């Protein structure tokens, strides 16, 4: 985690109440959060905790009822900023089926840059780069309905990448994928993070956040916890309270430590396991 990094997005005491919400209950209340440049931030929470509502603020799809959302120094409240905000923060949604606009793979990836009004040659090169990063270059001329669920979700990522935004917000991108599709998508996210993209990753699977730099837990529209991934996994009782389950491997590793009394590192990375267990032989 770089502490001196620039702030990409900032929520300042944001409260949001859905105008259509029958209860009048706030979906977010008093949320303050900073997303720093280049970090991979995990946003966790159970169903209805307000994760999607928060994510939609970062892209100016929702404007705070109270408080402010600042993206690269621009307030999302000013309609004149909306276009620049959406060019700086792009989004991938949960259902791969409902975010594809084009009938052919590369036409769909071009939709964002076309809306940005770029010249054709620039769109073409961005689409090519984005499809390459998403592992879809070989399928660029295929009709979109022939793609598998995992490929559709990767196309959604390519569509977001083609807009060349420095920050990418993914709202439960793996929720509807099989284990293979999930692994592919996570590998792409790791590569993007290594390439310097700022990533906000919304999920409720703890095993997906092992490589994240920082984690934020939402519950009932409030930030309940904020900090490193390792300390989060140590919050045993609290995790259960927030509706999150420690990954099976982490739970097993912890039990092993408790049973044997060995001083094992908290997170079972391959290197950590080898370092801790090999000397025992």
């Amino acid at each position, binding site marked *: 985690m770089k502490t001196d990094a620039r702030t990409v997005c900032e929520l300042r005491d944001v409260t949001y109440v859905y105008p259509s919400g029958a209860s009048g209950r706030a979906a977010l209340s008093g949320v303050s959060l900073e997303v720093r440049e280049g970090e991979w931030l995990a946003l966790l929470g159970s169903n209805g905790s307000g994760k999607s509502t928060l994510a939609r603020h970062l892209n100016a799809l929702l404007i705070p009822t109270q408080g402010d959302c600042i993206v690269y120094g621009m307030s999302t409240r000013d309609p004149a900023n909306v276009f620049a905000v959406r*060019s700086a923060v792009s989004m991938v*949604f949960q259902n791969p089926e409902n*975010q594809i606009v084009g009938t052919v793979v590369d036409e769909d990836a071009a*939709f964002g840059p076309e809306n940005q009004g770029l010249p*054709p040659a620039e769109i073409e090169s961005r689409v090519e780069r984005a499809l390459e990063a998403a592992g879809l270059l070989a399928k660029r001329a295929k009709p979109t309905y022939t793609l598998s669920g995992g490929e559709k979700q990767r196309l959604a990522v390519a569509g977001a990448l083609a807009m060349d935004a420095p920050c990418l917000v993914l709202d439960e991108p793996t929720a509807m994928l099989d284990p293979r599709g999930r692994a592919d998508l996570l590998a792409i996210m790791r590569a993007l993070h290594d390439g310097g993209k700022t990533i906000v990753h919304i999920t409720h699977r703890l095993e997906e956040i092992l490589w994240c730099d920082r984690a934020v837990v939402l519950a009932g529209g409030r930030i309940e916890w904020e900090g490193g991934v390792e300390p989060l996994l140590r919050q045993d009782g609290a995790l259960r309270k927030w509706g999150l389950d420690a990954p099976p491997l982490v739970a097993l590793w912890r039990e092993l430590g408790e049973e044997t009394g060995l001083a094992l590192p908290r997170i079972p990375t391959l290197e950590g396991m080898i370092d801790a267990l090999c000397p025992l032989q």
Partner: protein
Amino acid sequence: MKFLNNLTFGQYVPADSPVHSLDPRCKILAVPVVLTGIFMAGHVAAFAAWAGLLAALAWYSRLPFRLVLNSAKPVLILVAFTALIHIFFTDGTPILKLGFVTITREGVAAAAQMGLRLLLLVLFASFLTLTTKPMELSDGLERLFSPLVRFGFPAHELAMMMTIALRFIPTLLTETDRIMKAQLARGASFDRGSLWKRLKAFIPVLIPLFVIVFQRAEELATAMEARCYRGGEGRTRMRPLRWSGRDTAALAATVAVVVALAAGERSLLP
């Protein structure tokens, strides 16, 4: 088992042909020209000439002729119906009397003429969708209608609606299929009973389908907005349409063929 896969007739078939690479506007404009030509045809020889042109166009487009013919399947009932009306309701020299209906020589001729015209019409028009990508087609229509935007005509919006509708057809077919199977598993039947009964069996399919469509539409709208969509203004295209000399030549050739056939029929044949 798939219930609805035959609705995909007439959809774009990729191929590397001179017809595929024409500007979509050229193909769109050629359609009414050809249709006018077919409606002016009346003699057997003229119909034979048009059928020949159809085969030539299929060959030139690198499309299997059978596939082109298939695209007329959904309208065969309409063709048969039109022909029957003409057989029964045309006055003239009677050749056959069946109770109170009389079939006339003129009726048979008119039925054959109208049937053939409709058939050729559909077959020629299907080349437009068979050889043009949906996105190109909607781009072409948008550009052709763009002069009307000044009078408030929503050219971009209609073209975008068409693109999205085309994009959603396969999804909706899959969805309908899924719902129908779920209903079948609960004992519904779609192919037995009176017409009324069968229609009624479709209501439990249509309601969830509508719910799904609206839900999808809302999510898609959000996703489009997130990707900076704000209507046609300021929007550019990755592959802008380019009208070339070839397109002018193709359109001119189409007009020439239509005029030549019509003139030939008037002057050479009785």
